């Protein structure tokens, strides 16, 4: 008996000892991961919490369990085996009430036992107790997936009850490590995907290209899935923006006055994709559950709200916030023509002269836009050009789309002024 129990504990404990140092560092990571783990699968929520490891980490520093301080570092050879074993017993007895303490105690005790393998009596008692305790704990403590890769292999020897305390990490190997997709990591991911081609991108290949050890194929696969769905979403928006801008162009009367970039005829779909790429590397998908907020995250650098995530079309090489820039940039005197382009976008009115009144409400805050753009009288050339355009193309829709006055009313007013109307022969 005496011989057997220490042996048994030795086998396991040796492994555990080796792990212990690792555990200490892992304990903290475990904690973090555990928190994150919660999202992975509801059923395993409990499993994700390895009290054992948590407390192991904590206890080592002797905070929670003052008694354990006496055990000192595990790596230190305990020459005074007797003392430790005695301490073990006493410690254990006091901890029997405290399940968590037991966990820590058990592991520690086992460590001690290992070191003091020569010791007989105390150890035996301790180990026996330990087994009991461990078995108790086993029922309450569930398997914990290994925090990172470290403990997985070593901890899988969960056959013995004693080992369960620290060996519960991922015995079934179901749990996947939560990957933190940092911007840098994501950028590499995107690079890899683009290199392969979005549709062709296979997780295993991506993994190869990225060449990061901590990532599993599964991590990549799920991230890829998210990425793809996000792209679809973005493309849909771009399409919408493209068609919307087309309509806008019409409203702006061709708007080719100064050939502003965003009025370029290339309203095609594909050109829009590249600019979006500018966004992607900048942002990271956070927690999987944050899917809804992606759209806001991606174009985060656009100062404005989500509607701006579809930047003015046909401005691929240009900054995504072109729209926004229209406002501050148009302070240049020479470019007083800008408002011509800007205003139509504000209203986005269909090419119909008559606009429902509610569209005018937009004018309330939107009309202020042309204002800040320039404080001076627009250049003559600009006005001339604009007016000329109107005169030459009477079929074009109204830029603002104000509600046209009743003809009769205008005519009567004009007659009152002494003008029979008709295009007057003299100016």
């Amino acid at each position: 008996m005496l011989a057997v129990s220490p042996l048994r504990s030795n086998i396991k404990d040796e492994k555990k000892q080796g792990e212990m140092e690792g555990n200490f560092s892992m304990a903290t990571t475990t904690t973090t991961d555990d928190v994150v783990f919660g999202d992975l699968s509801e059923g395993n929520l409990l499993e994700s919490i390895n009290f054992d490891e948590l407390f192991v980490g904590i206890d080592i520093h002797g905070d929670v369990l003052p008694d354990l301080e006496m055990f000192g570092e595990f790596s230190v050879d305990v020459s005074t085996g007797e003392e430790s074993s005695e301490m073990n017993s006493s410690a254990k007895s006091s901890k029997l009430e405290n399940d968590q303490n037991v966990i820590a105690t058990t592991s520690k005790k086992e460590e001690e036992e290992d070191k003091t393998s020569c010791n007989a009596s105390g150890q035996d008692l301790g180990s026996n107790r330990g087994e009991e305790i461990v078995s108790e704990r086993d029922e309450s403590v569930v398997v914990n997936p290994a925090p990172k890769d470290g403990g997985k292999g070593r901890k899988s020897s969960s056959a013995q009850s004693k080992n369960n305390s620290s060996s519960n990490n991922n015995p079934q190997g179901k749990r996947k490590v939560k990957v933190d997709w940092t911007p840098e990591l994501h950028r590499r991911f995107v690079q890899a995907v683009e290199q392969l081609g979005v549709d062709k991108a296979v997780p295993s290949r991506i993994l190869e290209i990225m060449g990061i050890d901590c990532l599993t194929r599964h991590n990549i696969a799920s991230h890829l899935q998210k990425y793809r769905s996000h792209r679809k979403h973005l493309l849909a928006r771009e399409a919408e923006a493209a068609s919307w801008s087309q309509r806008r162009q019409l409203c702006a009367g061709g708007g080719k006055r100064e050939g502003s970039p965003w009025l370029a005829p290339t309203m095609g779909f594909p050109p829009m994709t590249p600019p979006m790429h500018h966004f992607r590397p900048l942002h990271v998908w956070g927690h999987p559950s944050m899917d809804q907020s992606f759209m806001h995250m991606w174009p985060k650098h656009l100062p404005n709200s989500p509607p701006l995530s579809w930047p003015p079309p046909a401005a691929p090489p240009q900054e995504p916030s072109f729209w926004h820039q229209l406002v501050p940039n148009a302070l240049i005197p020479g470019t007083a023509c800008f408002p011509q382009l800007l205003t139509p976008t504000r209203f986005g009115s269909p090419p119909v002269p008559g606009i429902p009144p509610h569209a005018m409400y937009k004018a309330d805050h939107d009309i202020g836009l042309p204002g800040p753009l320039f404080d001076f009288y627009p250049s003559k050339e600009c006005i001339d050009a604009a007016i000329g355009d109107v005169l030459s193309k009477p079929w074009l829709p109204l830029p603002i789309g104000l509600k046209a006055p009743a003809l009769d009313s205008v005519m009567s007013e004009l007659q009152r002024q002494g003008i029979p109307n008709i295009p007057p022969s003299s100016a």
Partner: protein
Amino acid sequence: MEDSSSSAAYIRLVHRLIEECILFNMSKEECMEALSKHANIKPVITSTVWKELEKENKEFFEAYTRSRAERASERETRQRIQSVVSDSSKERI
């Protein structure tokens, strides 16, 4: 009268031109001047159409006027500040 359609067209034209001027953030007077100069439209016509538009689109014009006024005051304030700054820099104490 066969003129009615052409009158209507003319008025539509003036309407459109006025909208363009609004895009340039002009006042009614400025608009009248511009249209007269560039499009040979009698200021009185411009003014009439403008007034009618204002009647039909009250809120728009209210907002328009307000924003113009704001801008003007902003400009004025800025100028005032600038003058104060330059004055103070010139001062020798």
